[in-house]
């Protein structure tokens, strides 16, 4: 183990503080966070990738909304659709016209994968949004009011935690019929707020004892105002980080459910159903197996990186990464002249 002498250690720690202070001097909290996030290279890469990927995938098939009378159609730039059987011959190997190949029915595989990715992204956003909203509200109410409200809400949370996602998928599938991906996503979202609620509750439990909450109360602020204006902004870091991780988890949940046959149903495609359908096709047409998996990994990986970057940015205790050269310069400056 390398031993540093005391003077050197001291001057380094002074250097660290000086750099840390200079980096945050004269900036608002938001600016500090944004700057810290921007310093996290993988997170920025993940963010850029996610934006580009979303636009790429959604623009490929275009937008098709509205009912049969008033359809809103914007043709995407990709010429094939998930129902169109192409006239290509052969085993469906990837070619220039079909870069990801064709599936068994000679449907363009890029169209299928991009449709699956679209669905996964949509489900992800709905679960994340709904779960985030419900979790925040539940946790905030439970942590702020405490007492019997807290007890009831937390027992309710414990109850929801025990219900596995697969059961929800099955119940929706059998009872509601195939309402499509949208209903599935909403129901999954209704059951995915539990972890966040616990976190937010813990955060509120400590924050409500702080002086600024007392000050607000003395000044006559209402409960609602204290929750939303005073406590919530202080807990926003935890919430954002947790929601990002919820997003990354929910894409795995959705594809896992679809893989087992409980998620996205037949006419629609999901990355999970694609993998399930073609896992046996590995030897003959490996591209049918690789692409959906790679897509899932890319989405989940970049979201995880974004989450990591956000956590680093929001955590004030996090030691900032200081380049060794910069530190040397700094300690040379502060070291007493020899």
């Amino acid at each position: 183990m390398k031993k540093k002498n005391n003077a050197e250690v001291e001057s380094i720690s002074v250097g660290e503080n000086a750099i840390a202070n200079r980096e945050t001097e004269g900036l608002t909290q938001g600016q500090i966070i944004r700057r810290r996030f921007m310093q996290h290279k993988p997170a920025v890469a993940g963010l850029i990738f996610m934006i580009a990927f979303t636009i790429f995938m959604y623009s490929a098939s275009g937008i098709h909304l509205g009912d049969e009378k008033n359809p809103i159609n914007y043709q995407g730039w990709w010429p094939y659709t998930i129902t169109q059987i192409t006239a290509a011959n052969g085993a469906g190997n990837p070619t220039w016209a079909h870069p990801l190949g064709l599936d068994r029915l000679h449907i363009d595989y890029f169209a299928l994968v991009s449709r699956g990715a679209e669905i996964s992204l949509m489900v992800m956003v709905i679960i994340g949004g709904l779960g985030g909203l419900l979790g925040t509200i539940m946790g905030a109410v439970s942590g702020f009011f405490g007492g019997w409200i807290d007890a009831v809400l937390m027992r309710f949370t414990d109850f929801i935690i025990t219900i596995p996602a697969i059961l929800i998928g099955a119940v929706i599938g059998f009872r509601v019929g195939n309402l499509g991906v949208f209903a599935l996503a909403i129901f999954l979202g209704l059951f995915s707020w539990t972890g966040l609620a616990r976190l937010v509750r813990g955060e509120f439990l400590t924050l409500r004892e702080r002086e600024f909450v007392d000050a607000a109360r003395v000044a006559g602020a209402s409960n609602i105002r204290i929750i939303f204006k005073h406590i919530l902004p202080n807990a926003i870091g935890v919430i954002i980080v947790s929601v990002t991780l919820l997003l990354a988890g929910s894409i795995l949940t959705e594809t896992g459910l679809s893989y087992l046959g409980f998620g996205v149903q037949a006419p629609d495609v999901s990355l999970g159903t694609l993998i399930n359908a073609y896992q046996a096709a590995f030897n003959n047409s490996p591209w049918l197996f690789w692409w959906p998996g790679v897509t899932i990994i890319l989405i989940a990986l970049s979201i995880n990186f974004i989450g990591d970057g956000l956590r680093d940015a929001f955590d004030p205790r996090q030691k900032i990464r200081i380049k060794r050269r910069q530190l040397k310069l700094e300690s040379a400056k502060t070291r007493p002249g020899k």
Partner: protein
Amino acid sequence: MEAYAGDPLQGLAESTAPNKAKLIAMLTQQLQLDVPPPARYFLWLRGVLGVFTGHLDLGVTRQSRSVLDEIAVAIPTTVKLLTVSTVLAIVLGITIGVISAIRQYSRLDYTMTFTVFLLFSLPIFWVAVLLKQFLALKFNDYLQDPRMDYLSIVIISAIIGVVLSGFISGSRRRVWITWGSSFLATAGLLIYIDKTRWVLNPGLGFIVIGLCGVGLAFGFTYIFAGMQNRKALYAGLTSALLSVVMYFPFQAMVGANANFILLIAVAILMLSVSYFVGYFFTEIDRGPVIQVSMLTAFLTSLLTVIDRIMQTWHKYLTDPAVDGRPVQTISPLNSLLKTNDFWMVTLDGAVHVALPTIALTLVAFSGYVRYARGSLLEVLNMDYIRTARAKGLAEREVILRHALRNAMIPLTTLIAFDIAGILGGAIITENVFGWHGMGSLFNIAIQTQDLKLLMGTFAITAFLAVMATLAADIIYSALDPRIRIGKK
């Protein structure tokens, strides 16, 4: 929930069998469908509450089999599937997480962080198929003709060199030296394995086991006590020696009719012997000495057992039921294998469980690395760590005794839940690898709308989850005296 999971009569209502009405009536009576759902729930609950009077009754499945029996069959399978992977994930994950935290912002840390994120984002069903394809089929192909070309030897050695040198801190020169020596060692080993056809008839022999034992003794002394603690080193070496001496009586003692109870007895014997070795070697600060002694003895004995299993490999490989393609992708055991040999059965179980274990470990491991790293980093920033360092304790003492113990507290919750989760089964993994454990039971229950089966598996899992929470709370308060259950 019960009533909403689908209409069990639906299948019959759509059927065209001539005795339709009669079948419906029968099924109605069997499933007590004439009773409204809430009342049916209480009927079921009465059976469950029978657990207090000794008559646990979870009802019958759609196939008129007792739910309890189905679960009793499924649980051993699931335990077999998940135990090894959970233990591996916990041990490996915490170890790597701790190393990663100590070397924060090093090459190793960055590599591990990236790997962990990658593993975190992997869908397990996808990994499982990849493992089946590459590990199982390719390895079986390789066994047909066990020859390696030099290029793959070089590549494998280079990769292992990179991994090993990643654990070393220090100057660039030191890293390269580590890389070079591990490269040469691995390449030499691989060439030896290749030339002697070791993979077809493997074994370690007591010399290799002895060397490993000595190496383990030195390694554990370095980690837990420090090289200047001679007592620990001697205790470790004595334990290693004892374990190697045990090699011959062990080989003679365990024949084809060995069983797990015998193995566990031997393990307990070795552990208690090594405990006393550690105890008698020193009088002050016994903890680390005993740790070194016990770990060395345990792992060396484990190597002896592995050696015994390896000796069975050739016999297993040439068995007509296996036909030289040992690694299996589905089901927990080879039903064609007709043998009563304990070692054959164990080996058969091991090759079947290998793939799912790897898949599950990969996925579960990443969580532990993340949590262990985060929690240790948090603890290392505390004031008492600064105090410990300031009073001149060695870095080893600071990390092992002051930081690690406190960092483990949040991890106990995770561990407790994962251990309870062992019995819950792994739905997706069991599905991919064709195992019939709790997970697949649950899956079947949902797919066939078998309410009694669903409620039965659900009740067991929920009960275990509650127990796990309770256990976690109790361990929590034992580890951290500041936490008092039931007081604000």
